[in-house]
């Protein structure tokens, strides 16, 4: 198991963003085959068989999610979640930049399986150029009869609407995304009812990530069983891993699931930069718990990483070398959650504020040990007690870093400055 290019196989082809080149590379064959070989029911069954799990972070089986829609309630809606804002994550931007029609084809296949006549792509506001690109591609596909009424003579109708966000991490949470799409403040809704029952405009709604949908043309063409055979038993297929931080070759690498994390680091990322050693890494983006060098042997498998106390999340690997101050990293992440807390529930709104205040004083070396001991208490009062996962995840990294690097956190207390910076100054200037 190693690098395996499925979604990224055509990346770099000149003009791939145009319909003509995409079709020359076999584009929209998946959609044609979906119409020819499958009913919506058998297509859902095929996706279930493929073992495809959501690529947005939670890893929920896609076919199962689709199966939750009530059988006879129409209209239904499909939303592509392109609100990628997880710290360390930039794969959806790449998938759109490099091969936008692959996403649109996947979206239409899902729409057919779900019998949806209006599908939305909700893209974060910061991805302004990507939104324009998608709008142009949707227009192009519509003009070619791939979007609209009676697509390819199948009798199936579906329109696609690209909708831009306006800067809010929380809109990546599916119910907040739905609120935002309705023109409201993007705040999460109480579940149940789940979006599959009552989502956009009160109708059954499925929200799928960009990468999840981009897999569908390949699953339709090559079969669920073929996809299932790729990767590991419970994490089938490939995944795009966004690698960043202290490495020689930052970038996005598509790996077969099950490849050891160390292989991704050494073979693809070119190892840790400046001949330094690895201190810690985050396997799933800003929300996920910190892992240590000993965890490099773990396979890129959702369940294996979960057993080690973290998560592959949205597939963002952030590597940190030996000069990194984990207090500083924790402070940045806590600041992020404080900024992005939507303010709907008190544990998150107040908790992230306290966390941020505490971490800033700790980072500056102005916190007492007594005050540091309240960090655990604050996080305990947030984790599992917030309205949506944002508040929970705001505690995961900082708590795991505190546990793994307790000495480092305590050394900051009353130090007046960062002891890690002082200890590694020689290495940094070398």
């Amino acid at each position, binding site marked *: 198991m190693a690098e395996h290019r499925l979604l990224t196989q055509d990346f770099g082809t*000149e*003009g791939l*963003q145009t319909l003509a080149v995409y079709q020359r590379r076999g584009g929209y064959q998946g959609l044609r085959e979906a119409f020819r070989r499958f009913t919506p029911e058998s297509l859902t069954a095929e996706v279930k068989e493929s073992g495809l799990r959501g690529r947005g972070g939670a890893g929920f089986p896609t076919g199962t999610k689709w199966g939750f829609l009530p059988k006879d309630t129409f209209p239904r809606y499909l939303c592509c979640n392109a609100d*990628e*804002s*997880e*710290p*360390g*994550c*930039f794969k*959806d*931007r*790449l998938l759109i*930049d*490099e091969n936008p029609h692959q996403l649109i084809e996947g979206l239409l296949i899902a729409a057919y399986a779900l019998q949806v006549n209006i599908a939305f792509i909700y893209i*974060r*506001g*910061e*991805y*302004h*150029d990507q*939104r*324009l*690109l998608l709008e*142009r591609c949707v227009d192009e596909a519509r003009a070619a009869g791939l979007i609209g009424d009676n697509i390819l003579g199948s009798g199936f109708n579906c329109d696609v609407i*690209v*909708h*831009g*966000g*306006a*800067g*809010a*991490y929380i809109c990546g949470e599916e119910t907040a995304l739905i609120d935002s799409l309705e*023109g*409201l*403040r*993007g705040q999460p809704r109480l579940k149940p009812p789940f979006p599959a029952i009552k989502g956009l405009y009160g109708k059954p709604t499925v929200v799928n990530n960009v990468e999840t949908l981009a897999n569908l043309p390949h699953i339709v063409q090559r079969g669920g069983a073929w996809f299932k055979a790729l990767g590991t038993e419970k994490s089938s297929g490939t995944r795009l891993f*966004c*690698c*960043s*931080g*202290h490495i020689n070759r*930052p*970038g*996005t690498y598509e790996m077969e699931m099950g490849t050891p994390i160390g292989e991704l680091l050494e073979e693809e990322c070119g190892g840790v930069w400046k001949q330094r050693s690895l201190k810690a890494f*985050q396997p799933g983006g*800003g929300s996920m718990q910190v892992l240590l060098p000993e965890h490099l042997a773990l396979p890129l498998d959702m369940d294996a990483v979960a057993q080690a106390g973290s998560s592959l999340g949205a597939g*963002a690997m*952030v590597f*940190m070398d030996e000069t*990194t101050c984990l207090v*500083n*990293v924790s402070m*940045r*992440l806590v*600041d*992020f959650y404080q*900024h*992005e807390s*939507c303010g709907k529930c008190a544990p998150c709104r107040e908790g992230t504020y306290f966390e941020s205040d505490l971490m800033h004083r700790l980072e500056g070396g102005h916190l007492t040990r007594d005050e540091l001991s309240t960090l655990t208490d604050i996080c305990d009062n947030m984790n599992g007690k917030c309205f949506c996962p944002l508040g929970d995840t705001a505690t995961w990294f900082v708590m795991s870093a505190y546990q793994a690097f307790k000495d480092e956190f305590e050394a900051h207390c009353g130090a007046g400055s960062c002891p890690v910076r002082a200890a590694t100054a020689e290495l940094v200037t070398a």
Partner: protein
Amino acid sequence: VQNELGYLSAEGMAEVASILDLAPSEVQAVSTFYSMYFDHPEGDHHVIVCINVSCGLRGADEIVEHVEKRLGCPSGGTTADRRFTWESTVECLGACGGAPAMQVDHHFHENLTPERVDAILERLGSQPRPGHGDEAIAAPGAAGAERTEAPDAAVGPTPKPRTARSAPRKRPRPDASDL
């Protein structure tokens, strides 16, 4: 409204409310929730420097310090000549593979060094100003050449320049994609 004025004025929001049959406070509630709506006029160019984890690990603090010194105003401020508004943001821009990164008028600039920042700001600062000269030249699209990931240059239409000083249309047309 923001596309026309460069920010959301109270009058603009009131007009949107009347078109959509909403209370002005409902429009304001939405506008204050999202970070990309501005409630006051900004500079000609908007610079956002990412300071989240991946950028932080690769020198974002140095970039922030440099931008602050060069533009002579703190994060969130606008230069005296109103050419630039800049801010550092904890909201990950999604350019971690090219960290440290920033966005200028929605365009990504990656693998920043103080020298590269200087070159980018220098070029923008010396262009004719939007609303005062040739908008085609001043359009932020000109910065697209700087992008490091080389997407198809012919891909999107040239983004609309932020015409903070152009005369607003009498009745701002609400754009569904921007609300």
